[in-house]
Each structure stands twice: as C-alpha cells, then as structure tokens.
C-alpha cells in the first residue's frame, strides 16, 4: 500500500515539476514530456526501478488508448474544417506517413546492413571479400 502510494507520488511530483518548468517557459516543451525526462533521470540515478513504479506504469499504459477518447471526441467541433481541408489532411497523414516509413526503413536498413558486414569483417578477416562478392 505505502510503496504503491510512494510510486504514485513519485510520478505526480515529476509531472508537477514538468508542468511548472513548462509554464515558466524555460524550456518550450510540454510539461508531461519534461516530467518523463526527469523521472527517467531520477530512476537512472537511483540505479533501480521499484516494482510498484513498474506496476503503476504498466497499468496506466495498458489503458493509454482509452485516455485519448475524451480529447478525440472533441473532433466533432471541427468536422467542417476536416471536410474543408480533407485533401491536405489526408495527404499529410497518409502520404507523409508512407514517405516517412520509406525514408526511415531505408536509412535504418543501410545502417544495420553495414553493422552486420563490419561484424562479419571482425569475425573472419580474410573471407569478407568473398562474402561481399557472393552478395
């Protein structure tokens, strides 16, 4: 009971700190994100994650999809904007996402390929050229 409250208090304390820093405009970043970074630093400095804090996180993140519903319902007030700007919105959402996936996967694949081939180089010095030629 008490350790659980302690974990909750921990999360809320960093959220409050994040909101304060965000409002003070020292860093123009949303409060919860500052809270996330502060909590990460806090756990890293402690060097271990308490079981209760892990449980609080797992429970809360399990229902993350549900927590977006109240905000999402607000879209009914913007349906006229959505239909007026349907083309740019759909283009950015669908086209933008497809291009992002293409670019990210391409970059990541090249890096992972290079890492794999340099590992092959480390493991077997002389045979790399043969492997490359085969590929």
């Amino acid at each position, binding site marked *: 009971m008490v350790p659980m409250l302690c974990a909750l208090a921990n999360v809320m304390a960093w959220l409050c700190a994040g909101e304060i820093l965000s409002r003070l405009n020292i860093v123009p970043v949303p409060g919860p*994100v500052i809270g*996330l970074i502060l909590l990460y630093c806090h756990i890293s400095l402690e060097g271990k994650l308490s079981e209760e804090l892990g449980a609080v996180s797992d429970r809360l993140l399990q229902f993350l*999809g549900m927590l977006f519903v109240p905000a999402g319902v607000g879209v*009914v007030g913007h349906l006229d904007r959505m239909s007026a700007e349907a083309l740019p*919105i759909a*283009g950015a*959402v669908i086209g933008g*996402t497809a291009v992002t996936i293409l670019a*990210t996967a391409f970059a990541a694949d090249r890096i992972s390929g290079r890492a794999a081939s340099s590992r092959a180089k480390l493991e077997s010095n002389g045979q790399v050229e043969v492997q490359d030629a085969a590929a």
Partner: protein
Amino acid sequence: MPRLDPTGWLTLAQHPAMAVGLTVIAFFLAIRIQRLGRGSVLLNPTLVAITITAACLHALGITYETYMKGAGFMHFLLGPAVVVLAIPLYRQTPLIISSGRLLGASLAIGLPVGIITAVGIAWALGATSETILTLAPKGATSGISIGVSEKIGGIPVLTAVLVICTGVSGAIVGPPIMRALGVTDHRVFGVTMGISAHGQGIAEAFKVSEVAGAFAGLGMALNGVLTAMVIPISMTLIR
C-alpha cells in the same frame, strides 16, 4: 414514472460517473468490435470508441463542453501516462546503448522527414496555418503530440484524432513498403514502425516478433520525446 427535470439532466450529464462511464463502456465495446473484426487495424478501438461516444452525446443532446466537465479527469490522466513512458524506456536502456547507431540513424532521418512531409504536403495542398500546426506533431504518440499542438497553436483535439489516423495508415502501408524495400532485420522493421506509426506501429511490430516490438517501443518513445523538443524549439527560433 419519475422524470428528470432539465437542470437535473444537465448536472447528471456533467457528472464524472456519466461521462467516464460512457467513455469506458464505449472503449470496452470498441475492443469487442475489433475482436469481432479479427483484430483489423481499421477498427482501431480509440477511433471506434470516439465514434460511439460522439454518437451517444449527439443522441442525448449533450454538448462536448458538458461531457468534458465529467471526462476531464480521464483526459488529465494522459499527463501521468506520458510521464510513466520513462519506465519502459528505462527498462530498454541496455538496448538503446547496444543499438545506439541504428536508433540514432533512424531518428535522424525519421523525425525530420516525418515533420517536414506532414507540414510540406499540407502546405502544398493548401491547408490553413492552423491545420499545418495541428499536423506538425503527428509523428509523436498522442499524449505527447496533444501537448505539442497546444504549445505551438494547433488544435489539440484534432491532433489527437489525426495522430491515431497516422498510426492506422502507418500500420497498413508500413509492412508492404518494407517488404518492397527487402527489409529482413526485425530491429529495422520495429524502429521504423515505432517512429512513423507510434502505438499502432508497435502493435504491428509485436505481430512480427518480440524484438521488433521492443524496437518499436523505443522508436515511439524516443521520437515522441525528441519531437516534443524539436518542434517547439525550432518554432521559437523561426519566430
């Protein structure tokens, strides 16, 4: 039969029990509906729950403002939910270190391309500046992007829905694009899905493997945190 007078009805509609209750039941039904639809990404539970809730409010003649007085509590929980994203990130710290180059390269490309394509395509197709600002943080997970949208002058509620649409479209187009590119590395698949399609991308990645899922989680969390810093900071620099 006893009847509620109009003011009684209004106070009841504002009560958290009604608003939160409606939202939770709508989400429960949405999960059931997705199961009936064999887990189709198009039947995203959040989008379905939004539709059910909005339809109920419309049928009952309750305004969004009235509903939000009760459901505000649930919306508030997004704050702590974003803070606790630190925990999965902390658990995966060894993975961040061992795959630093892969994650770094993916983020160095995925993050700017995500923002620039969203803003650029919307601008080129004639979107208003408010809509462009609403779309800019679409690559970050909803909890974060709503905050960014608020911070830079977008429409947070619209961002919330468009972020989910981004996730859904990413989950649909991502796997065929990566097949076409010949991606075989599960880490690459995961990190790409996490960076471009956040929550829904993670779900797709877990269908491939545990490794892909873990990298998707990392991609989403790191992309979210960095987007929350990059967009507002570059906005203040431009102004």
